[in-house]
């Protein structure tokens, strides 16, 4: 394309840039003196010291050059003098995408280390929004954004699935506390607390919902969860799409108002807290009439008010705390988690640096949904891994679901002897539940564990996926149904385990770092010993289906698109194994 003509998308980006830049952004774009002081604040730089393209000032300049060329006088008149430049092709837009999505987690660490006060994270988010507005974004961002626009939550959790999970957790709670009143109230009017959660909790970690419910119940809180508009996460923060950000936040605010709730409590999620508590009112242009607080503050308050009794001797394993960037660097939430930890764990070990100076878990800014950048992300995670290792702790606690995923991934990658937990888990574990007045409760008798009655009893299944959450979820569902499950996080492990275990079925992800699923599938089919093992492809990239079926080998026995729920997974596995 000639330099005189600009692609349609490039034209739109330039046009929108001039409308999008506000005074704070303009100042951040104009004020950089290229002093380089921000360089070592960035975990990408620390992990890639020989690659100057990771330097925050360089990354900012990819955006700044456009601003200077189109909005600043020096750049308009003598662009080469200030390295101003425009953008003409979709390829150039893709290069910009690689920088703003793939080389920055918007953690804001460079912003607080800039002597000039340049807030690069804000500028980077703005650039993401411009690209998203013309459809240029990593595929994961597109998928998640679509789910949040269309289904109302970023993991595409259906209402029935959500309500079923709450029902299930209610039953578990009733059984655990032997109290029929211990339920999760849904859409109860005029409550003190409306509790909102991250869809990841429904999908992969319902234990955190049960733990929170236990805490609310024991604290005697008048609380509820909304049947709709319950997702407090907001992909608009990551994608830079203010319209999505506003729509998602509004959905939640309006639901709380509809329920006449007095306070919105936000479960432990860094970007969810920031989006709902801080940015949402701005994006949605909504003057929120109720109080919003993090569940960390709520739990701390309950203990201080004597509504919860805790015994820290129930949590004896050494614990450290990872500050989520969004919580600590953008919302000032860093003392309360420590105060809570000091009440519920015996052995707390500080991580350095910490609070607002902590390093990103490397999964922030939506990085966990951009699998194309996984190798880059994991390389930069060495900084966090070293921080974690230095604490000597066995559990790293964080108040953020993104951080849970990011930390879990890096712990596995760098083979650290650690687990990840959230404050709600440790607080629930430390609870001292006082004996209640005995009320006859019809508790369903425990079903005898007749393993043979389980649908997948005796079947050996190999689950292959690079996402730890998916591995855990699939393994739990299949294991709970009687299967003997082994896990492989990558292609090499898959091939080893397949030869060793000769499983009855392999569930295979396609997008994985290193040897991708397509190659693994072909290798399995071409190995005479393994060719007969049924394979179920489970991928978040439906467009890769053709690449599988085009291969010169027999097709897979099953094919599922992510997100996949437990019922669908089970049904398909049983079909492949001819158990239905």
């Amino acid at each position, binding site marked *: 394309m000639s330099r005189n003509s600009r692609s349609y998308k490039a034209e739109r980006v330039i046009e929108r840039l001039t409308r999008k830049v*506000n*005074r*704070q*952004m*303009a*100042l951040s774009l*104009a*004020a*950089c*003196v*290229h002093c*380089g*002081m*921000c*360089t*070592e*604040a960035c975990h990408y*730089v620390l992990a890639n010291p*020989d690659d*100057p*393209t990771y*330097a925050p*000032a*360089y990354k900012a*300049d990819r955006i700044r050059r456009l601003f200077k060329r189109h909005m600043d*006088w*020096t750049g308009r008149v003598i662009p080469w*003098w*200030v390295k101003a430049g425009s953008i003409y092709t979709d390829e150039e837009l893709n290069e910009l995408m690689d920088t703003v999505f793939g080389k920055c987690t918007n953690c804001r660490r460079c912003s*607080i*280390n800039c*002597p*000039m*006060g*340049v*807030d690069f994270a804000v500028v980077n988010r703005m650039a993401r929004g411009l690209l998203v507005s013309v459809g240029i974004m990593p595929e994961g961002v597109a998928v998640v954004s679509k789910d949040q626009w269309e289904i109302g939550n970023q993991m595409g959790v259906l209402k029935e699935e959500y309500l079923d999970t709450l029902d299930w957790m209610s039953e578990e709670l009733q059984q655990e506390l032997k109290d029929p009143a211990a339920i999760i109230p849904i859409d109860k009017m005029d409550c003190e607390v409306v509790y909102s959660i991250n869809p990841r909790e429904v999908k992969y970690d319902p234990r955190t919902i049960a733990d929170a419910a236990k805490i609310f119940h024991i604290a005697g809180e008048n609380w509820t969860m909304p049947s709709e508009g319950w997702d407090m996460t907001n992909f608009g923060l990551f994608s830079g799409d203010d319209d999505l950000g506003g729509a998602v936040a509004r959905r939640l605010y309006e639901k709380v108002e509809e329920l006449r709730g007095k306070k919105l409590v936000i479960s432990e999620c860094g970007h969810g807290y920031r989006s709902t*508590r*801080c*940015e*949402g*009112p*701005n994006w949605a*242009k*909504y*003057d*929120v009439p109720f*109080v919003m607080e993090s569940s960390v503050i709520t739990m701390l308050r309950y203990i201080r008010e004597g509504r919860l009794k805790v015994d820290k001797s129930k949590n004896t394993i050494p614990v450290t705390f990872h500050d989520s960037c969004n919580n*600590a660097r*953008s*919302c*000032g*939430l860093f*003392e309360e988690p420590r105060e809570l930890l000091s009440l519920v764990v015996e052995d707390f070990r*500080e991580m*350095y*640096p*910490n*609070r*607002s*100076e902590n390093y990103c878990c490397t999964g922030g800014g939506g990085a966990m949904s951009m699998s194309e950048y996984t190798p880059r992300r994991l390389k930069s995670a060495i900084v966090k891994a070293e921080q974690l290792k230095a604490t000597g702790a066995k559990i790293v606690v964080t108040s953020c679901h993104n951080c849970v995923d990011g930390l879990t991934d890096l712990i596995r990658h760098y083979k650290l002897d650690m687990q990840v937990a959230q404050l709600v888990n440790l607080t629930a574990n430390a609870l001292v539940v006082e004996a209640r007045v005995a009320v006859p409760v019809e508790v369903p008798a425990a079903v005898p564990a007749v393993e043979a009655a389980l649908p997948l009893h005796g079947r050996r299944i190999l689950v292959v996926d690079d996402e730890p959450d998916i591995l855990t979820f699939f393994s739990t569902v299949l294991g709970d149904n009687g299967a003997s499950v082994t896990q492989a996080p990558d292609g090499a492990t898959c091939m080893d385990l397949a030869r060793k275990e000769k499983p009855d079925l392999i569930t295979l992800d396609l997008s994985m770092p290193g040897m991708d699923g397509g190659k693994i599938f072909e290798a399995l089919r071409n190995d005479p010993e393994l060719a007969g093992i049924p394979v179920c492809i489970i991928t978040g990239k439906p467009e890769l289906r053709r690449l599988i079926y085009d291969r010169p080998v027999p097709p897979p026995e099953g094919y599922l698109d992510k997100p996949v729920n437990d019922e669908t997974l089970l049904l398909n596995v049983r079909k492949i194994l001819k158990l239905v």
Partner: protein
Amino acid sequence: MSETLLFVEDTLQIWALQFMGTVYFLRLLWILHFKAGGDRQAPTGRGTSPRKGILYSWLNVAMPWAMESTRKRAFMYAQFIIFHLGVVSAIGLSFIIPYAAEWLHSLVLVRVLQVSIGLAFAVGVWRIIRRMTHPVMRKISSPDDYFSLILLTVWFFFAFLSVPNNHQDGEGVLMTFFLLTAFFLVYVPFSKISHYLYYPFTRFYLGRTLGHRGVFPLRRTS
């Protein structure tokens, strides 16, 4: 003193200052024409406020312990201070010579200015070398970055030589210093050197936001 030097020291500087003031005023209008983003959220964090955040943000320049980037790199902070003190001294000199030349009869003041400007010159040379050799600095530098730095360093050099205000032995040094000063005043609004115009604003907005959100003043344990 020749008429030319008198003109260059005084009238030309006033013209240049007027030009710079006008362009700065336009620059301010340009900045203000961008709509300022608001903040509807209720405050977060403890023990801080937008006002505290702004104050902390503005004073950040005088608190090397506040930012990790200056706390861990004392030399970087020291050279920053030396360089900017040199700028202040050289600007001061450009006013002292035409309007209060008798002050320079004080050997103490002469030595103070010479040390300040001389050290700033040394820092300027170091900065040029760093900018040309450090891979990140090279990658992020524009012609304006190099030119502005070289301009200032050369200006320091002539300022250093001009401190004694000795025009009896020739006016070349003083003439060069004041011509450079005039050029500097005219060029500044179009270059990165105008960053000090933005500084109060960038730090105001960052301080206001992060003060409102309980982040500024920064707290840490290390």
